[in-house]
């Protein structure tokens, strides 16, 4: 096991996975593998798909961004490495050089050009998944399990897509339209369904450590995002009615709300932590890639609001996500990787200095997004980015417990924090 190999960067001059692991010997190889499989994507062999047990494993879920699976065949929703690290990714038939998930001697492995890289397993299905709410909604369409976080995304339609303002890396509206058409997954959730699904999920001892809500941006209301805030209050109150104390471990990944809106959320719900993604930590690139957000709010105000949230939620309880690597997108991105990394980490340090952890996901140029034909930067870039962000939390004594490996699992940098946790 963990016989790390092989070729990934054929003829590009990039280091291979094996070379990157050797070069960065102080960085967890599991997290390097996670970054690379997310970056390069993967496919399943028939034997691997035959190992999917629909009675045990998750093979369908409500996801905001990405895909609910391509093609007709049921596929596992995601993968888990043997150190507990999640790989949040779907197989891609469009990938140029994918890894292959195969079954060998009864176990599942990530393989690369026929060589074993690392053992994996499929995510298990929680007990509530096959149950139905009193409204007749399948509970798996209300809450996803990732795998120790309850993901409830009450609205899968983003208003920024109107008038051409969609973020260029995102496919939320394309995905939700397709999910509705092909699987009858509703774009908006009902509060009663949320209440009943959370009630059912809590009956399974040891299954969940956090509840997260997210949604497409809702621009309407007396002030921009007022209606989005009201929706979250309704949904968080519905979920919170199942807990014996008012506050419970929970995260909101939402638009950049102003102080009045944040205070309303904090005071009227059980919410404990808050994330608003700056997406691309550079004003010029944000204006190009997140056009709608820049036109309606602007980079500087978006950032100011995130930092203002620290006064309400507390230091360490506010994070901001970036689409790691998207800053190198063509034609206006920063093509030199060293320069791109410098720009990102300098801005991340400005956030950290003010009490906000910046966390990254690995950019996947997904179908349905404007950037679907783009290429991600090198694996080495992602290793340096993850280590750089994790090191900033050490430097500024910021912990990312709200967004850690078992609560989110989509951030290689917070996965690394597990090896050197910072007290909050």
């Amino acid at each position, binding site marked *: *096991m*963990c016989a790390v190999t092989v070729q990934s960067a054929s003829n590009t001059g990039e280091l291979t996975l094996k070379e990157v692991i050797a070069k960065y010997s102080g960085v*967890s*190889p*599991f997290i390097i593998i996670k970054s690379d499989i997310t970056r390069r994507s993967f496919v399943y062999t028939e034997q691997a798909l035959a190992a999917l047990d629909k009675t*045990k494993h998750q093979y369908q879920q409500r996801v905001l961004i990405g895909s609910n699976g391509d093609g007709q065949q049921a596929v596992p929703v995601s993968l*888990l490495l*043997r*150190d*507990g690290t999640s790989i949040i990714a779907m197989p891609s038939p469009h990938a140029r050089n994918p890894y292959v998930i195969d079954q060998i001697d009864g176990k599942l492995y990530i393989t690369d050009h026929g060589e074993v890289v690392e053992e994996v*397993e499929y*995510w*298990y299905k929680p007990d509530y998944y096959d149950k139905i709410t009193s409204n007749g909604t399948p509970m798996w369409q209300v809450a996803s399990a990732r*795998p*120790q976080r309850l993901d409830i995304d009450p609205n899968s339609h983003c208003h920024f897509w109107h008038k051409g303002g969609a973020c260029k890396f995102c496919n939320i509206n394309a995905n939700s339209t397709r999910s509705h058409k092909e699987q009858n997954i509703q774009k908006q959730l009902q509060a009663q369904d949320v209440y009943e699904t959370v009630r059912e999920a809590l009956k*399974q*001892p*040891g*299954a969940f450590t956090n509840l997260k809500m997210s949604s497409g941006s809702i621009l309407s209301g007396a002030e921009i995002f007022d209606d989005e805030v009201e929706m979250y209050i309704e949904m968080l109150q519905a979920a919170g009615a199942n807990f014996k104390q008012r506050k419970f471990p929970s995260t909101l990944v939402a638009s950049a709300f102003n102080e009045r809106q944040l205070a309303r959320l904090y005071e009227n719900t059980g919410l404990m932590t808050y994330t608003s993604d700056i997406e691309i930590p550079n004003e010029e690139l944000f204006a190009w890639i997140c056009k709608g957000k820049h036109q309606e709010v602007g980079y500087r105000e978006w950032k100011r609001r995130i930092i203002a949230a620290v006064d309400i939620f507390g230091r360490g309880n506010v994070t901001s996500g970036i689409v790691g690597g998207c800053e190198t997108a063509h034609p206006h991105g920063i093509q030199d990787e060293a320069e791109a990394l410098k720009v990102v980490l300098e801005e991340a340090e400005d956030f950290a200095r003010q009490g906000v952890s910046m966390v990254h996901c690995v950019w996947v140029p997904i179908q349905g997004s404007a950037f679907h034909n783009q290429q991600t930067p090198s694996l080495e870039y992602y290793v340096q980015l993850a280590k750089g962000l994790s090191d900033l939390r050490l430097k500024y004594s910021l912990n990312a417990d709200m967004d850690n490996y*078992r609560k989110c699992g989509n951030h290689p940098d917070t996965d690394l924090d*597990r*090896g*050197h*946790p910072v*007290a909050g």
Partner: protein
Amino acid sequence: MTTINEHIAALLRDPQTGKALATTDMHGVPHIILDQTITINDQGQLVYLELIETSQTNVNLVNSIWFKRKVAITLHTPEETYQIKGVPAYSIICGPVFEHYYRLALERNPDYDLSTVWLIEPEEINADTYAHRKSKEQAEHPLVMHLDRLALGAT
């Protein structure tokens, strides 16, 4: 992975056996905990239940699985002592195996909120009583001793 014989497996299953787990941090600083609940599963792996997510032991075990660093478990009864060295192979944080041990931990103490089920694969097992260590030393290093023990009249 090496195979643990039935006698030592029985000691591992016995809650009366004294058990200590030794780990090291990234700088080689040792950390030892005592835990009678360390046991063995049907696959011959040692099972350690970590109750505290950010404990020094858990952090050391995370770094051990990441960088293939060995840990040691000592088993002790009044009659015998064994030391097992191995490598953490699985850090189970969810799924049916985790939930089985989560419920087991709750039965032991309702306050226990299990963090991680660690499966450690044994690589080396040694009897570790004084008699075993002395016998090994005499066989491998017969010149290492004090001369007074050989003096005329010594017992």
